[in-house]
């Protein structure tokens, strides 16, 4: 699967002024890519991620999935795209408090209308992210790193082609950050396209391509010295 972001701009009105959160961004992602977009808070990187996920609509430009514009999708088609083609790991805690770890992971499987043994697949993914022993626990009993792993497993339950993560290592200690990034790297090596936005330079050790984002403008970097 190829995702092409073509000249995407997202504008917001701030009082009388127009503010460009994303400014003419173009980017192509393919299977096996592990891309990091690094930038300060408010640089527009999360907005870009959400445009790719179809969670917000760009003011101009296009997002093409295998040549098809997601902007033309109906709500049902967009839900199908998010459910089956895309795994999204939101910023912060995103698990559902009233479901066990296992149920959190297998929820997208059922929301997509799939039939079959979701529990076995969810358990395999929990083993893959190293927290299978927590399957019966509720999110309130988990650490930040464990919650992030639940979110990763959940994003993978429907075997999507693309995984995107918004600040996947925020609030994590150095050790856990390294573990989560290594996990995302192994996922990309398995053939999925992984896109993360972060301000953690540690991510650069794991990615295949890196971009910086400043005031909504995306620039590819060979090597990032300092943000």
């Amino acid at each position, binding site marked *: 699967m190829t995702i092409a972001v073509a000249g995407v701009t997202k504008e917001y009105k701030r009082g009388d002024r127009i503010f460009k959160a994303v400014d003419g961004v173009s980017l192509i992602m393919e299977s096996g890519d592990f891309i990091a977009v690094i930038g300060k808070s408010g640089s527009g990187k999360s907005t870009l991620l959400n445009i790719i996920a179809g969670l917000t609509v760009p003011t101009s430009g296009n997002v093409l999935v295998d040549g098809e514009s997601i902007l033309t999708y109906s*709500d049902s088609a967009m*839900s199908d795209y998010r459910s089956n083609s895309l795994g999204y790991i*939101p910023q912060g805690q995103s698990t559902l408090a*009233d479901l066990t770890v*296992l149920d959190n992971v297998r929820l997208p499987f*059922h*929301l997509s209308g799939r039939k079959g043994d*979701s529990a076995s697949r969810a358990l395999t993914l929990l083993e893959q992210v190293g927290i299978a022993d927590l399957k019966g626990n509720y999110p309130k009993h988990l650490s930040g790193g464990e919650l992030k792993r639940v979110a990763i497993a959940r994003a993978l339950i429907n075997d999507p082609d693309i995984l995107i993560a918004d600040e996947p290592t925020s609030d994590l200690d150095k050790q856990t950050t390294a573990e989560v990034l290594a996990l995302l790297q192994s996922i990309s090596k398995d053939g999925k396209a992984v896109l993360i936005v972060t301000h953690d330079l540690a991510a650069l050790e794991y990615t295949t391509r890196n971009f910086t984002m400043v005031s909504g403008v995306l620039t590819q970097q060979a090597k990032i010295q300092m943000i």
Partner: protein
Amino acid sequence: MSDKPLSITRLSLYNLRGKAFRTGALIAVVLVLAFALFSGAVLSASLQNGLNSLKERLGADIAVVPLGYENSYQGIILSGEPVRFYFDRALEQQISKVDGVEQLTSQFYLSTLSADCCSVPVQIIGIDPETDFVTKPWISEVYREELKDRQAIVGADIAAGKDNKLTFYNHEFSVAARLEKTSTGMDNSVFVNIRAVKALAESAKKQGLGTNASVQEADLENSISSVLIKTERGYDTDQVVTNIRREVDGISMVKSKSIFSGFSENLGIIKAFIGIYSAALWILALLILAILFSAIISSRKKEFSVLRIMGTTRVKLVRAVLTEAMLVSIVGSLAGVSLAAVVIFPFSAYIGEQLGLPFLLPDIGGIFVYMISTLVLSSASGPLSAIYAAVKISRAETYITLREGE
């Protein structure tokens, strides 16, 4: 390891179970609504039934009683208060000739006031089977034959012995049939043949058993307690009353419509109050629930955003919210209706007594209809009040709600 499909309903159940206090508060609102709607409807219907029953049982348009005994007569009809009053039977003949009188029958009242003479203190009403047009229609619902001298038809609240017999002034009567509950004085009355009750009164008089001056002094053979009149078609009741008053002295008259017109008026006010109160409460409950659901949904923005991210369609999201609202409403409705039933049904007699109005519960079919209507109305209140907030959250841009929810 559970592999039950995580349907929208199951997800809603987990959510409700996980937020016990919030769920309890929502259920409590619906419970109060269902309680008020069901109890209001049953109360209103019971009062209407009581009035209908009273109208049905009155049968006659005018009751002629001895001078000054109109309240006593009303006491028999409304509360079954035991009374005894008599006047000359010859008056029946006089009244029958009055212009506007189509049909008439006489009754003879004897009461048993003390337990030493009789098995239960009751009002005994002697009816004349040959002329009776008042009690026959409803007695015939339970007993079609002519009452024999030692037979009695008893009101719903009269307790007969194990052998189905009642003893009045040392005379034994077998219970031929029991009338249905009417919530009027008839429930505490015993109907016997007028010959039998006169013989009973005569015997009691001779034995000096628990009889008062009115019995002691009366020429029982030639006495009656009341003359019940059906007016001729085309005649106004007031006009017939005036005609009787002109022809007959020493009597009082009670118009049936005057007995229940007061009740009708009171009932109208009570029913209107119950109706307005129920409607106001329903609207209030809808508003409270709408505010609660709006606040709850607003506090769960991130959760709903995550559901959207996972591929939940707008329609499914609305369904999830409405399912939760519906589940809460169903539980609240069932609890409210059950609580109302527990309060109203065992205490219906007490409620009727306190209201001072005839109070007759609807039959099972009627109660079932009120129950279903209440369940439908109160169960709909949750989804109805949640729909605006549900649609609003489903239409919001997920990225915005995700950020707002953080």
